[in-house]
């Protein structure tokens, strides 16, 4: 239950529930896929965010569209971590769990902290549902939940009762039970109802009965907490000291889409997004398809290869050209990415990584495409690669990837992952002034134009069809330096290989020096990249709070790597590289900097828990300090 900071019983009041103040709490809503848990979770998130907490979430739903009702395979969960301080993860284990049926209980109770609050929909603990959840005995009766504060509430019955007045049929009425459960949670964590009420009114404005029913359910749940004697404790998590500004909540994929639109707007060019649907990247496609008032040209291609190729064509013709995909699709794009490298056209390839190999665990997260991003093409085929570290960071990463692509005339790979792409967090809406400059300068002078000359960055000119007098032809065969003609001259090949490598190396001028969290040197440095930022940083913070001498660096740039990285690595006795793969960054760091490393790997389709990292820190530092 986070750090319990204070306990106070308001003076001069009937001995109601105790209110415990927390700096941070994590709750999880779990139920059947059809139970509306994702929706309830989003509402809790929004309410907490508007309330002023820092929040981080983790939605986790089944691979099947509609897994059979009541089964373990069909359980859908949504976890929210909210705090009065800055947080980076949705939390390892939860302080409160809502389980809408036996399957949800079984699948999730292991993550509930001892002594945590467990809200159960007792109506659903029927013989049939228990069997589907593979319970031999009813856990409500065996005593196995005694470690928790378990509250058995007939949520379905109570909901039906509450919404009677609306005249809704029992099926529709029962659908409101997620709002009842949410109401209970709101009471427990002392959250205001306004935001959700407003949302309900807006969403169901055309079906007032449904709006009313959901409102009534929500209020009934809240009232249940208020009136029942069941609960002996309530929790309060104060607003956090966040950076002032206007916030909204968005997923990493939404943020990436916003970042792309923003980049194209700043560059004053149309955005071309060519993509083929694939979990967990499709949301970017969906988001951009909605942006029709901007000049956003969305091409749903026949496959990933076509998407990448169309991007090359669009880049040649002067658009800000981007494709998005996930692991298997990335593999398919590689040959065409090679063409983008050879033709030196600016484009961005987003890979929202998922569990592999092959189809793997398509709805789960992983960081196992680092090698294929940097090294996975035929020939010497270098390109810049960077990774986003959190949902809102996807906005900035997409913007930066685009800026670099345009500045250096190169394809750029942006790595995201299922956890970052589908997770959500508050995003501080940037001032226009904070946005970087992106200037596009097309070649225009026929007198001086040659397609493969280079500017100070090593970039060749961007000469788009339609420009008078700049007719030229590019392609995948090796090009002659300067003229770009097809060229088989041996020395030219070496030269062009070097020039292309140098250009990517030049991106170092746009890679900020690596900052170190903690001491500049010492016994142990944690190294991470991408979506594991939150867990690793939190582990580092906690370890330091606990007096351990641990530092942390988180890489945004994987290729090229920050200039000072080698020096930093060499200042530590031990390097712990934490990644959701079997050591991909590790190989690169060892190979580039000849530093010994050890790795913390996890291949479970799930992000790190802070505790896992802390355990490893303890191990390496010889027990807790």
């Amino acid at each position: 239950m986070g750090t319990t900071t204070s306990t106070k019983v308001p003076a001069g009041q009937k001995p109601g529930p105790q209110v415990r103040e927390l700096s941070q709490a994590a709750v999880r809503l779990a139920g059947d896929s059809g139970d509306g848990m994702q929706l309830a979770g989003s509402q809790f998130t929004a309410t907490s965010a508007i309330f002023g907490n820092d929040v981080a979430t983790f939605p986790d739903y089944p691979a099947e569209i509609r897994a059979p009702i009541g089964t373990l395979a069909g359980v859908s969960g949504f976890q929210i971590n909210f705090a009065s301080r800055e947080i980076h993860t949705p939390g390892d284990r939860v302080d409160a769990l809502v389980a809408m049926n036996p399957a949800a209980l079984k699948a999730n109770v292991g993550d509930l902290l001892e002594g945590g609050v467990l809200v159960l929909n007792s109506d659903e603990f029927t013989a049939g549902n228990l069997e589907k959840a593979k319970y031999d005995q009813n856990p409500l009766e065996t005593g196995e939940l005694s470690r928790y504060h378990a509250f058995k509430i007939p949520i379905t019955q109570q909901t039906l009762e509450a919404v009677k007045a609306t005249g809704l049929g029992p099926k529709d009425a029962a659908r409101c039970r997620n709002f009842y459960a949410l109401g209970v949670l709101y009471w427990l964590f002392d959250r205001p109802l306004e935001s959700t009420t407003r949302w309900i009114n807006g969403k169901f404005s055309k079906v007032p009965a449904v709006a009313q029913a959901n409102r009534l359910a929500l209020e009934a749940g809240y009232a249940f907490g208020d009136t029942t004697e069941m609960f002996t404790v309530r929790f309060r998590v104060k607003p956090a000291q966040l950076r002032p500004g206007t916030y909204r909540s968005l997923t990493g994929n939404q943020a990436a889409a916003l970042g792309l639109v923003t980049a194209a707007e700043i560059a004053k060019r149309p955005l071309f997004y060519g993509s083929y649907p694939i979990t967990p990247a499709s949301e970017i496609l969906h988001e951009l398809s909605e942006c029709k008032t901007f000049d956003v040209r969305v091409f749903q291609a026949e496959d990933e290869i076509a998407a990448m190729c169309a991007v090359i064509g669009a880049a040649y013709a002067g658009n800000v050209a981007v494709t998005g995909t996930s692991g298997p699709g990335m593999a398919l794009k590689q040959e065409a990415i090679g063409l983008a490298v050879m033709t030196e056209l600016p484009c961005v390839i987003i890979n929202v990584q998922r569990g592999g190999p092959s189809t793997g665990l398509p709805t789960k997260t992983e960081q196992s495409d680092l090698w294929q991003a940097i090294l996975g093409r035929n020939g010497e085929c270098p390109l810049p690669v960077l990774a986003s570290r959190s949902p809102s960071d996807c906005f900035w990463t997409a913007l930066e990837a685009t800026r670099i692509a345009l500045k250096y005339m190169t394809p750029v790979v942006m790595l995201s992952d299922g956890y970052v792409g589908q997770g959500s967090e508050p995003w501080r809406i940037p001032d226009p002034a904070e946005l970087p400059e992106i200037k596009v300068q097309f070649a225009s002078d026929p007198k001086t134009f040659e397609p493969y000359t280079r500017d100070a960055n090593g970039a060749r000119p961007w000469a788009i069809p339609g420009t008078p007098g700049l007719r030229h032809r590019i392609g995948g065969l090796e090009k002659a330096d300067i003229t770009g003609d097809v060229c088989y001259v041996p020395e030219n090949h070496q030269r062009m290989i070097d020039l292309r490598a140098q250009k990517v190396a030049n991106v170092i001028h746009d890679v900020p020096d690596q900052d170190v969290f903690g001491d500049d040197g010492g016994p142990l440095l944690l190294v991470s990249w991408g979506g594991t930022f939150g867990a690793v940083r939190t582990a580092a913070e906690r370890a330091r709070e606990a007096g351990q001498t641990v530092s942390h660096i988180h890489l945004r740039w994987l290729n090229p790597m920050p200039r000072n990285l080698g020096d930093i690595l060499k200042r530590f006795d031990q390097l712990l590289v934490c990644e959701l793969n079997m050591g991909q960054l590790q190989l690169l760091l060892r190979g580039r900097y000849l530093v010994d490393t050890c790795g913390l790997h996890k291949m479970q389709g799930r992000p790190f828990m802070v505790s896992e990292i802390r355990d490893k820190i303890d191990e390496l530092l010889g027990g807790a300090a």
Partner: protein
Amino acid sequence: MSAPLDPTLVATPKDFKTDQQVKWCPGCGDHSILVQLQKVLAARNINRDATVFVSGIGCSSRFPYYMETYGIHSIHGRAPAIATGVKCANPELDVWVVTGDGDGLSIGGNHFLHTIRRNVGLKIILFNNRIYGLTKGQYSPTSEAGIRTKSSPAGSIDYPVHPVAVALGAEVTFAARAVDTDVQQLQIVLQRAMDHQGTAFVEVYQNCQVYNADAFEWATDRNTRLDHLVYLEHGKPLIFGKNREKGIRVNGDNLEVVELAKVSPDDLLIHDERTPNPAHAFRLAQMHYPEFPEPMGVFRAVQKPTYEELMLGQLAAAREQKGPGKLDKLFTAGDTWKVA
């Protein structure tokens, strides 16, 4: 169609030649197609600066190097996809795809299909030599069954596809066919393709002098070709033969060759390139030598909105309705809250 840069200047075919040495084998049909296309573009005074040639990989795909326009010599099979990107990024451009039977129909078959069904405004010229030229002579998807090649020493066991039929299967809005050596008809067909809005598909029977020199003798031999080809003319009956003495008649569900002397011209099949139903053109595409004369010319030419037109149309409509997009509005869409 884009306007010439300076309408007072009249282009000549030379204006469309590059300084690159043409590297096809002597006797290769690619030479002729190049020359005819340069003539056609010049005659129409096409703006070279607003024209893009996109090709894949193969002998034929070297084409862009020889066209004094913009161009991309891309990767194997992907030209239609790349060209789709070019056209969507700038619909003002004239975008041509040059591909081979291997490039366009083997590895690239899927992009071919989808480009066609979307009716992207591209002109796709397929150089069909029924062989893989550049990789030195393996059979291709259009090679005759039984052909002996490096990869089919005992005869190919693949049945060939017929490109026009495949294109019609995907409901191409324009399909035509020509022979490399029949320069006049080739020019006409290229011109028609140039004028078409939407995907214009042209199959050219192209001689590979080195690896498949006999493939089209029947269609090019001066003495016999007129007995083996029938030229399609919109609204006209299908008549052919050295002395235009034969015709094509519908018999029940099938077509048959008839002697004009013995039937009334009214019984002949009348060509209608504009009929919305692709079945008419498909039936023509099933006429194969030697049972039938093979149709040359335009099989089908119908109009429907192009992909890029619809794409930009939706953007324009949205802007019309809601005003042009503003970043700050986009940023603040949905629930927001303030932290002070």
